[in-house]
């Protein structure tokens, strides 16, 4: 089997296990490239249907072009989209204009997600994180339990092997299901190219700049690039040694920021 086929099959297996294993699963969707692969794989896993809600945690700092893409994709794929904003924090004045990025990310993403989860009563969240994004994520499981406070107990993770996973959660807990864990950034691009998965235009070069990873507007910076097509991007990635998330300010704000964010429940 070819490598991408193996990855695709494994992800589909995981998605089906998640759908079977939980009462109320939901899929997180940021409209980014990994998220779009995830949606695509869900359509494949369930033969054209996405049998759970697709959740977008809207920080209100989204690029307008991404919001357009969101509306288009909802129609195109026909999924049940739930958009959630931490209105309470925004009303308190939490924002990049006034607050440090780690706090903003915590409030507008993590806390927003907590609110969304308890509002809808989801017991599993399907996410598009990958092991190669960050050394902390490298230690993740396919099915990764979170306690009621959203904490990830990375010191005592449940074993998983032979296609058997943690599919039960206690009261207030939920499980993160991570079907793309084994994919690398280049695998994602190769798959996007092969399957012709629709993407926001911001990943491609305009005026010598493009976005490699998309987050909130004020803290996401483009990189210098002339890549106009997916194959250009793949060529570019083959020689780069700059980390994918280097354009994301919140990761670099302080030492071990990513670990702190994740332990507190960040995606």
């Amino acid at each position, binding site marked *: 089997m070819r490598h991408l086929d193996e990855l695709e099959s494994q992800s589909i297996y995981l998605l089906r296990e998640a759908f079977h294993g939980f009462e109320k699963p939901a899929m997180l969707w940021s409209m980014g490239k990994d998220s779009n692969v995830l949606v695509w794989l869900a*359509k494949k896993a369930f033969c*054209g249907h996405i049998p759970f809600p697709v959740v977008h945690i809207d920080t209100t700092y989204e690029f307008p072009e991404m919001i357009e893409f969101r509306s288009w994709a909802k129609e195109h794929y026909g999924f049940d989209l739930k958009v959630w904003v931490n209105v309470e924090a925004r009303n308190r004045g939490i924002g990049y204009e006034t607050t440090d990025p780690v706090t903003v990310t915590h409030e507008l993403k993590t806390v927003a997600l907590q609110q969304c989860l308890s509002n809808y009563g989801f017991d599993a969240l399907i996410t598009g994180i990958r092991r190669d994004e960050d050394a902390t994520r490298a230690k993740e499981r396919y099915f990764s339990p979170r306690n009621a406070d959203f904490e990830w107990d990375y010191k005592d*993770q449940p*074993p998983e*092997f032979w296609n058997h996973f943690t599919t039960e959660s206690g009261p207030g807990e939920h499980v993160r299901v991570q079907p793309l864990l*084994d994919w690398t950034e280049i695998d994602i691009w190769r798959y996007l190219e092969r399957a012709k998965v629709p993407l926001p235009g911001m990943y491609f070069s305009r005026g010598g*700049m493009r976005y490699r990873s998309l987050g909130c507007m004020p803290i996401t910076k483009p*990189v210098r690039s002339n890549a106009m097509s997916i194959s250009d991007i793949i060529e570019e990635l083959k020689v780069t040694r700059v*980390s994918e998330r280097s354009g994301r300010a919140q990761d670099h704000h302080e030492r071990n920021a990513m670990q702190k964010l994740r332990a507190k429940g960040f995606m």
Partner: protein
Amino acid sequence: MSTLSPTTPRPAPEAQAAPAAQPAAPAKPAPQDHLDLVVVGHVDHGKSTLIGRLLFDTNSVEEGKAERIEAACKAEGMEFEYAFLLDALLEEQAQNITMDTTRVPFRTASRVFTIIDAPGHKEFLKNMITGAASADAAVLLVDALEGLREQSRRHCFLLSLLGLRQILVAVNKMDLVDYRREVFDGIRAELGEYLSRLGVEPAHFVPISAKLGEGLLRRSARMPWYTGPALLEALGGFRSSPPATGGPLRMVVQDVYRFDTRRIVAGLVESGSVSVGDPVEFVPGGKRSRVKSIETWPELAARAQGPVGAGSSVAVTLEDELFVERGQIGSDPGDKPVEGRIFTARVFWIHKTPLRIGELIPLRIGTQRAEARVIGIHRKLDAVTLEGGSGTGGEVNVHEVAEVRLRVRRAIAFDAAGRIPALGRFVLMRDRRIGGGGVIDALVEEQAGTSEGPAASRAAILGHRGCIVWMTGLSGAGKSTLAKGLEARLLGSGVLAMVLDGDVLRTGLSKNLGFTPDDRSENIRRATELAIHLAEAGVVVIAAFISPYRADRAMAAERAKERGVPYAEVYVNAPLSVCEGRDPKQLYKKAREGRIPNFTGVDAPYEAPLAPDIEVRTDREPAHEAIERLAKLAIDLSLPDDQSDSGANI
């Protein structure tokens, strides 16, 4: 909402990574071949250092990371630490150990490797198993200075159990033994002999120094006596595990979807392949149909016809409207999995609460779920000597491996792991987590139901037979406490247990009896007969009676023996003064005041057992410890007579 102001990307740093000059970035022609590699070995034998060094030497480290680590090490006054290229979590850097399985990709010109770093600390074995179970090949690291350690052997043993056959042994830290050939040869001889007993033939033994980069990318000039390949060359020779394309069809059913008019059977092809028109039989159950279509999204212009091979997720519709469900295996009707209820297996246990004989435990195999009874723990396998340990103690403790016999209530379908590995592997769940894993060696044929008789049939239904645990002791000695604790403990393990309490009996069956010696004997006689009936029904009877006379207790034991009911005597012992001090029902007080005549210990005798099966000093031993001892005794008594080992090889 603020607007984006595009900033200039930072210039490429000029600095070369520390501490040695990086090799020029190799040309990267997009290798398509992937190999998942697990690195195992004793703690501190240099796993993280090796991986860090491989990342560094193959130019796979992200920009700036080596520089940051160099700066951090300098600040701490340390040498540059390659392991830090890998270790992410704070605790790891602080304690200098890797806490959890990490997957790190690196590439050579011909292949993408994903390294699964498995920690060597004994308490982290579950992480190693999690990592190693999905690997194509393993690197076992042995410290040249320390040689083979217990963990090195244990890891090899588990690798063989997990089915890993491609193993490379790297003898590390050769610099610390002056690159001497004798040291390397000695380790190779010792480990080679051990591995061959496991049926594992290591592909290579390679001498290296991970820290100094000797023997990794190319052979080391410091070890001219070594003529084999360098580590990376040797790894290049491993094959990524080919899925079982040949072999009979095994499609593990995950679900049946009815989102629209289609009735779609979704699953994973573990062996063989599936095409439109193929006959399929779903086991257990045995219903047959043919594949009508292979469903895809997006729909293809030319509908998919197959074959869809092993390792693929697939969705099919069938020609007939069958009731198919999760847990079944779509199989080649001419070559089906076996179905059965009793099988032998080798299990490894990774939960802190031991796997106990007699207990009922959730089992998962493929997508099938069942409740399994541990009906035999035949021998423990010692990872160091590879020999069966003496006495299993009725339990498999954390990090132990044992040969067990399991029985499930409803037949499951499987193939012996030696035939189709994926269909012969199962996990056992404890507290919603995987507590251990196992590979099925053989189906055990069950004897025909009719010849067994009703007692054996009852035992088969319950998973155990009845027995009597007779507790004797003074009033206030703690019989009721222990009896109730034992009852709860046994029920919790799925054993049908019940307390037969002296006080309760006297309010009903023995209502007409007093406390004279004759009446006491009659009371015990009635209790014995009742206990025997209950035990014959399959109940583990916990009889809690003062039963002060040896002769009465001897009679009870004798009657049980006559009727073939297993019986054990437990002496619940506490000094009279202690019992009287406890006096939960104020009986001693009343007896001393003369309001209760013939009270045992006050004005009637208590004849202590001469040779009880278990004696519990309740004034000294904590109740929970005593209950564990009693539970072991009760479970041993309740085990059905083990049929001779008639494990038919399948």
